[in-house]
């Protein structure tokens, strides 16, 4: 009997320990970054004088606001206060979610949509492929396929519109100088840390409207979802005690005007021609073969007839006048000593997958169904913006230069990819296997490397203290492709130089925009 008790006790202990090991550590797997609203490190009174990105952004105007002692304004204040008193718990949660730097949230929404739409169309039953079509977004397949070139373009237009919108907002804020409602009426409890930035027009509303418009154009199936997000955001601005309705209306006006200008650039930037028909793609390939004696060919089954956006290299750049200006020299000839050395390195990596190389390959993979490498760098940037307590104007500026630089780097990279049309390791090395997926475009240069070096260059400029860190990461991202078996070392190394060179154009422009 005594033995039996002991025995049962032991069993109970074992079961209990197992239960703890399996289930006791319930984890929080967040859908967005958890951070509290913070006091901004600067107000940037002269922000309205900073240089716009879009040439037509400076001609947006809004009417002067009503005076703070006017009947009209006092009625607005009263309406706001009364609404604030009826705030529901759900609305309180929304106010907390949006924070006083909603640039972060709209960027998160953008990268989430990128992840959602970053699915490559599979083959049809007869072995053909149907490409997403902006004219019929429902598909199948749904539009868009948010691959890295598509993703960074969406992010660039989003960020440029936000930044130009912020400059306009700052311009009128300090021109009209109407202080925030809680500065006039100390019974208003502002939901966020107080500041002295004038509230007309509402910078939050500029961000909400501009972001909703840009993302709706980039993700046409999400129009309803985005409108809902904008409505929630605008309501939060009102209920936070930071903006009366006329602040918000003026902000919406600027946001919409800016978005129209940004989208008109997007409509003519050459993206609609980037995905070519097969004859064009074939002639690009033939030209490379004639020039260099090599060519990249898709290895999928069934073969994809056209690589990803062969003419993305012709898309209009933000800060580089001519893409050939930044085109790198040719890769090593197939069979050359340098090439053979690389074959050896790649075979060695494939035969010896260390846990560190595997970790790096996976950490930076950012492949299908993810936010892509540009999204990854946006995520890193977002964390710095919060850590450095940037205001929305400076946050927008950082994202704008970051995403312009990454997009330009991508354009330059694609120019090199289809100019050189260099084959992938799986085509050249017999029986070669990879630990990450080989993408549907030529190898040289590596997109990850150019994107990442461009990002590191801009982030080093904005956050000099983080320079070592961001360059370490960029190098890791570049090497990750070689570790994964899908790129040659020279794809990565030359791509890094290329990305840095391209981003210097953006940084040189940023240095002169009046913010420093």
């Amino acid at each position: 009997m005594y033995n039996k008790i002991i025995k049962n006790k032991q069993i109970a202990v074992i079961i209990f320990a197992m239960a703890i090991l399996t289930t006791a550590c319930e984890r929080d797997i967040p859908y967005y970054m958890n951070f509290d609203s913070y006091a901004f490190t600067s107000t940037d009174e002269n922000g309205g004088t900073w240089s716009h990105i879009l040439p037509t952004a400076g001609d947006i105007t809004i009417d002067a606001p009503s005076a703070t002692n006017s009947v009209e304004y006092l009625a607005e204040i009263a309406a706001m206060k009364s609404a604030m008193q009826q705030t529901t718990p759900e609305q309180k949660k929304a106010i907390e979610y949006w924070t006083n730097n909603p640039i972060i949230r709209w960027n998160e929404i953008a990268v989430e949509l990128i992840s959602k739409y970053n699915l490559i169309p599979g083959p049809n039953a007869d072995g053909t492929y149907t490409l997403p079509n902006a004219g019929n977004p429902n598909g199948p397949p749904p539009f868009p396929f948010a691959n890295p070139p598509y993703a960074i373009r969406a992010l660039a237009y989003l960020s440029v519109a936000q930044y130009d919108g912020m400059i306009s907002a700052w311009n009128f804020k300090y021109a009209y100088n109407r202080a925030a409602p809680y500065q006039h009426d100390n019974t208003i409890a502002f939901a966020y840390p107080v500041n002295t930035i004038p509230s007309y027009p509402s910078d939050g509303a500029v961000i909400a409207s501009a972001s909703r418009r840009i993302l709706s154009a980039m993700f046409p199936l999400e129009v309803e979802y985005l409108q809902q997000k904008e409505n929630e955001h605008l309501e939060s601005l009102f209920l936070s005690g930071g903006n009366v309705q006329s602040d918000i209306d003026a902000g919406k006006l600027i946001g919409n005007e800016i978005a129209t200008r940004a989208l008109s650039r997007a409509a003519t930037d050459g993206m609609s021609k980037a995905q070519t028909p097969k004859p064009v793609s074939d002639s690009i390939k033939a030209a490379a073969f004639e020039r260099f004696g090599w060519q990249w060919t898709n290895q999928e089954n069934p073969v994809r007839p056209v690589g990803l956006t062969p003419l993305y290299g012709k898309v209009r750049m933000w800060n580089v006048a001519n893409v050939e200006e930044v085109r790198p020299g040719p890769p090593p000839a197939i069979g050359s000593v340098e090439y053979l050395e690389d074959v050896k390195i790649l075979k060695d990596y494939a035969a010896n997958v260390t846990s560190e190389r595997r970790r790096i390959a996976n950490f930076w993979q950012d492949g299908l169904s993810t936010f892509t490498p540009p999204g990854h760098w946006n995520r890193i940037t977002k964390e710095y913006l919060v850590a450095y307590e940037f205001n929305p104007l400076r946050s927008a500026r950082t994202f704008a230069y970051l995403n312009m630089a990454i997009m330009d780097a991508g354009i330059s990279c694609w120019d090199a990819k289809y100019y050189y049309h260099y084959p992938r390791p799986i085509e050249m090395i017999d029986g070669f296997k990879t630990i990450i997926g080989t993408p549907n475009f030529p190898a040289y240069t590596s997109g990850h490397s150019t994107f990442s070096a461009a990002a590191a260059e801009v982030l080093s400029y904005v956050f000099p203290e983080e320079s070592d860190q961001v360059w370490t990461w960029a190098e890791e991202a570049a090497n990750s492709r070689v570790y994964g078996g899908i790129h040659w070392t020279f794809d990565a190394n030359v791509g890094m130089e290329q990305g840095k060179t391209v981003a210097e154009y953006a940084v040189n422009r940023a240095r002169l925009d009046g913010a420093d």
Partner: protein
Amino acid sequence: MKPSHPFFRGIFLFLPLFTVYDTYAQTPNDAVMMPLGDICILLNYDFGSFDEYWEGSKLRENATIAEVQRKTILPMVAVGIFKNANLYVGVPHVSTRSTEPNGGKFAGVEGFQDLGISLKYQALRKKMPGGELFLLSSVGFSTPASNYLADYMPYSLGFGAPELSVRGIMEHKWNNNMYFRTSIAHLWRGYAEAERDYYYSDGSRYSKYMDVPDAWSFEGVIGFRALGNSLRLELIYAAQRSSSGDNIRAYNAPQPTNRVDFDRWGLFAQYYFKDIKGLGVLAYHNRVFDGMNTGKINNTGFGVTYQFNFKKNEHVQ
């Protein structure tokens, strides 16, 4: 001494595909108990493959991965540690690959999957009119035995998370050597650790942890014994239903967060040699016939068991 053989049944109950590699923690799901002091050693080889899988509930092929193959070698030890309790310990060694040609050119992987420990306890054994009734329960725990990457599907060795399973088993044996057994288990799964800190699972997820869905597991078995208990044959229906999880996205790789359901039938046979004390062989074949987010996998296995009693230092039967 009464033969106490065929307890290695339902091996690879969960071999099917993407996340459900775990098998082993489920193993002790029959009604047979080993006597105190008995040890049984199993060495099992399993080959599973699929060239179609369910993306959500849509059955499809994918030339990127062509046919995915999985070989598993499972060494396992069972011990009659107490009069009414058996302990099982094992760790499968798995290797995966795609057949050629395939469009993806992905490297397969190999290594030790999950270390599993389970304990089976006989709660009731009762003579009934015309037969006998058994009630048992088993508790299992498994956890990755190597640093394999779960987020490398469909090649990954396992789903990469610890699992606790609790199973209830009921068997009725008729005097004519037929028996019927049914069992139900709940599988609590922890988190798989990815090597990235952002992934998509019905929205952005800012974490390296992937929540592997808990699941219910069912089994119904009709069996019979022949040749004076030396041969045992079973027809098995097995099923799993995840309690949560997302679908495999279009033309995309599976991931540990997927809702994995399946229905499967199988045959199992075990034979104990009369001339060689303690030696037995087993064979089985399973076919998944319906599912969600899982391969339409068929698997076949062979095993050798050797049983002896360490206390008496003599072979059992």
